[in-house]
């Protein structure tokens, strides 16, 4: 072990936590932030904490954000710790993203795709200028949202492009997928485990890895085939019932990245795909995930594995921010004895060097 147990400091710890609670509350002359406010008004933080905490529960994620003073990795850590206290009732049937209630759906490769380009509540096309109106709690503008709901079909872009046979098809399988919450990561890691790890991976890490593939480290010339966000229903099949039941809705974001592939000995030239799926409205994460998923398929597709994002072990061992923060931050714990021995070593080496 790199550290030893030490006694003492209980009073200091109690005082530190008391001060933390005071700091968390902040100036008592302004009203306390409610969990409902965080849930409703800091939705993107809630989404990120649910994704990285790997637990979909908007209220708990909001509570964790409040408790962690907005530190989103700490909040995700709180969710991961909480989930270990609960039994697992079931796993769901795979969610049908094709049947998603669409709130946003865009394609960068087909302008006139069936169902159209639906922008949804996006930051795209905003000017990224600070809105000082928000300092004064201005009400949001109304009036622009006037269209009638329609029932336009929204086929997934792979299903459109797939009809020509130019896009690699999804290979259905009923194999029981691996589960990182039950078995530790092992290699070679199949795509099911890689996707689970990416879905709960740190957004910043996955984003950086995805970005590196665009900059030439394992370049794959991707196109955003489709991004869709909205609600999907979740179905489970409880043993006591013997049939599938719908237990509610989740907001998910899905990204299909499409990449030109020159073909191999067994596969003709076509477009290959990378896939991203995350809890909540997390477009940046879903896109980055799809890029990294595609990069990690290099070996499967007979490409040279040369870049960090193509190195499955490297990506999966470093994508989890709870593990990463645990190991980086453990360096804060007392290492007094280790350091004493290091000190003696360096003193001896110095004495020898000067002799």
């Amino acid at each position, binding site marked *: 072990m790199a550290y030893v147990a030490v006694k003492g400091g209980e009073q200091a710890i109690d005082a530190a936590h008391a001060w933390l609670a005071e700091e968390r509350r902040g100036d008592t002359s302004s009203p306390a932030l409610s969990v409902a406010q965080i849930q409703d008004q800091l939705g993107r933080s809630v989404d990120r904490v649910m994704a990285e905490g790997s*637990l*979909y*529960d908007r*209220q*708990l994620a909001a509570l964790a954000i409040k408790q962690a003073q907005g530190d989103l990795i700490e909040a995700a850590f709180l969710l991961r710790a909480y*989930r270990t206290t*609960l*039994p*697992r*009732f*079931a*796993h*769901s049937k*795979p*969610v049908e993203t*094709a049947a998603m*209630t*669409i*709130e*946003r759906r865009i394609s960068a490769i087909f302008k006139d795709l069936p169902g159209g*380009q*639906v*922008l*949804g509540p*996006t930051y795209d096309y905003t000017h990224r200028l600070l809105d000082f109106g928000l300092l004064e709690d201005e009400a949001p503008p109304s009036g622009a949202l006037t*269209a*009638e*709901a329609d029932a*336009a079909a929204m086929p997934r872009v792979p*299903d459109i492009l797939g009809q020509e046979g130019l896009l690699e098809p*999804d*290979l*259905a*399988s*009923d*194999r029981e*997928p691996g589960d*990182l*919450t039950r078995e530790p990561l092992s290699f070679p890691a199949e*795509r*099911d485990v890689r*996707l*689970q790890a990416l*879905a*709960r991976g740190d957004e910043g890490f996955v984003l950086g890895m995805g970005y590196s593939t665009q900059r030439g480290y394992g370049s794959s010339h991707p196109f955003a085939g489709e991004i869709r966000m909205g609600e999907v*229903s979740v179905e*489970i099949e*409880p043993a*006591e*019932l013997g049939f599938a*039941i*719908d*237990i*509610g809705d*989740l907001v998910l974001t*899905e990204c*299909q990245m499409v990449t030109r592939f020159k073909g191999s000995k067994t596969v003709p030239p076509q477009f290959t795909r990378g*896939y991203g*799926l995350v*809890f909540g409205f997390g477009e940046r994460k879903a896109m980055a995930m799809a890029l990294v998923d595609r990069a990690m398929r290099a070996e499967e597709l007979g490409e040279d594995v040369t870049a960090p994002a193509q190195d499955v072990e490297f990506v999966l061992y470093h994508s989890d921010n709870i593990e990463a923060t645990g190991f980086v931050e453990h360096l804060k714990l007392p290492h007094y004895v280790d350091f004493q021995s290091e000190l003696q070593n360096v003193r001896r080496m110095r004495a020898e060097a000067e002799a």
Partner: protein
Amino acid sequence: MTDRVPVETRRQRWMAILARAPAEGLMTLLNEAGGAPEYTVLRGPEGGLVMVRGRAGGGGAPFNLGEMTVTRCTVRLDSGLVGHAYVAGREPRRAELAALVDALMQDPERAETVEARVIAPLEACQAARRTERAGKAASTRVQFFAMQTMRT
């Protein structure tokens, strides 16, 4: 017509509606539909998790996406009918009421009233919410204008 639909399918419909119903609204509607009969809670309400699965590429091999919180409850009416509920989230009261209404919907004497006074209004309310959001989404659909080409 409803007689021709298998009971399982009809039950799936009302359970899906109940899974999305708020506890307070459900209680109010149930009171208007004759109130709650005597019942025994057989299990729960208890909180747990469901592992949500997706498919690689959207249609390929399944993978584990992450978990969600779920509350389940099973009740038995004095008549012997058993109701089940699994609902997303952590609201014991909501799960218990959903299980109770599931049992009532299996009772031929209560089903018609409960359908009309509880299930149908909840369904309409849920459909209205979906329509409202779908309308907002439709407002943000891009209308492309054809560009006149310069090569004539």
